[in-house]
Each structure stands twice: as C-alpha cells, then as structure tokens.
C-alpha cells in the first residue's frame, strides 16, 4: 500500500519560502497571487495492506519524525 504525506507549516506560522515564491511570481508578471505556502510531500511504500492499520502507522511516523508538530501540520492520503 502506498501512502502520501503532505507536510505544511501550520496556519499562522510565517512561511518565508512561500513569501519569496510569491514575490518572484509577482516579478514574472503573475498578478493576483495573494498567498503562497510551500510544503513537502513524502511518499511511503508500505508492506501493510490494511488501510486502518496503515493509517495508524503513518500517523505515528508523522508524530515522531515526518512532521515537527510544533510548527507543521500533516495530511495523509492512502492509495
């Protein structure tokens, strides 16, 4: 089973990289980009075939390592 984890800075945490991208887009003439948030995607290839158990395991991975929950939030997509 595959899992895709999306890690983003929490709402309210200023994202300097997203801001820089927003400025660059403006410089390129893309008007009207009011906000850019940059995150990361982590793809996992799991031996587990049960979706519930897989989700439980990935949540534990996010909490322990994949995300720093002080500043980041995560979303898990199984497929």
């Amino acid at each position, binding site marked *: 089973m595959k899992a895709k984890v999306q890690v983003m*800075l929490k709402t309210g*945490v*200023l994202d*300097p*990289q997203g801001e*820089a991208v927003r400025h660059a887009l403006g410089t390129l003439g893309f008007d009207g980009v009011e906000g850019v948030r940059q995150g990361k995607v982590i793809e996992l290839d799991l031996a587990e075939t049960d979706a519930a158990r897989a989700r439980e395991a990935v949540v534990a991975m996010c909490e*322990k*390592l*994949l995300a*720093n929950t*002080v*500043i980041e939030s995560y979303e898990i997509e199984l497929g």
Partner: protein
Amino acid sequence: MKAAVIVFPGSNCDRDLAVGLRRAGAEVEMVWHKDTALPPGLDIIGIPGGFSFGDYLRCGAIAAQSPITRAVVDFVHAGGHALGICNGFQVLTETGLLPGALMRNANLKFVCKTVELTVATTESVFIQAYKPGQTICLPIAHHDGNYVATPELVGELRDQDRIAFTYADNPNGSTADIAGVLSENRRVLGMMPHPERAVDPAHGGTDGAGLFTGLAQMLTTA
C-alpha cells in the same frame, strides 16, 4: 568538570566545542552518535553545531532519532546538564527537551557574522561569567535560526526567566529576538550563536570563553 561532546555525521563544530570546554579545564570525551551509552560520571553534554545528516527532512530531525540521543534525553531527565549550540539547539528542540522550533531565516539568507547579544536571564549556570543585561558579541552562522514560539510560550519563557540570550538586532526573524532558551529545570541551554567560536583572541573575540569557564566553576565537583 567532565563533559561529552556528541558527534553526528555532518557535525562541524564538535572539535571547537571540545576546545572551548578543555580551555575551561574540562575533561572532554567525544561520543559517536551510534553509541548507545554515555561515558560515566558526566557533568554536561555538548551538542555541537554543524549540519547533522545534511539537514535532511528538517534540521536536527534525524539526529534527534540517533541511538545516543536516547541516552542524552535520559541523562537530561535524570537532572543532567546539556548545552546545544546552533545545530545542537535544533536537535534539542526536535527531541522536545527545549520548547519551540527553529525554521528558515525570515530573510531566507544564510547569516554568517558576529552579532551583539543581551544576556537576558538573571540566573543560570551558563551565565556565571556575565552580568544580566550585559551585551556580548558572538558569531552566528546559520540558515535555520528563526526561533518560532507561540505568544503563550513566549509569555511562559519570560515569566520563568528562561530566555537566556536575545539579539540586539534580530538577524533571522526569531520570535521576541530570542537567541537562546533554557529548559524548565534551567539545566539545558540551546542557543544559535557560537560561544565556542569566540574563546581565543585569534577568533576575533573572547566573549564566549566565559560561558565555559562559568560552567566549569559551577559544575566542577570538589
């Protein structure tokens, strides 16, 4: 004073930190990250600057899962002292031994220069050689030194006198100009500036030396 300096793949201030501690009279042992136990009889653990594990995933995130880090956490929970500098500070926040987090500098630039700091706490074994409110100059060299803390956490740190150092001129966007924080039991200090890079006149300044001599004074058992 007996100290251990932890060495991760990608640490690059480990020897400087050992030199700083030794000059203050400490006996220093280097400990590789794959070791599972610390040397006996330690007074303090130093977690050095650098780019452990290439800063993969997040700065300090992989090092926080190293075998030796478990022993460091146990040592601290048993009341031991620890000093994390730069990447070491990032490792300590990733382990949860220190609150908050360090993220990309607000101006997105790697900042490498000497900065003015204010000694912000009034009581700590780490500031014995300084006066509260004193200004000292230490080098910084980091890309991810932007200390993030919620208003609640900042309030708590202030109330408990746990902000160790603040920047006179904030170089990285850190919340409340925070350059270093203490743990709740005041025995763990994490800081982005490098005291070990300011212990010899040839470094261009010696303001960091006092941190180590002060520690040696406080932690050396007769």
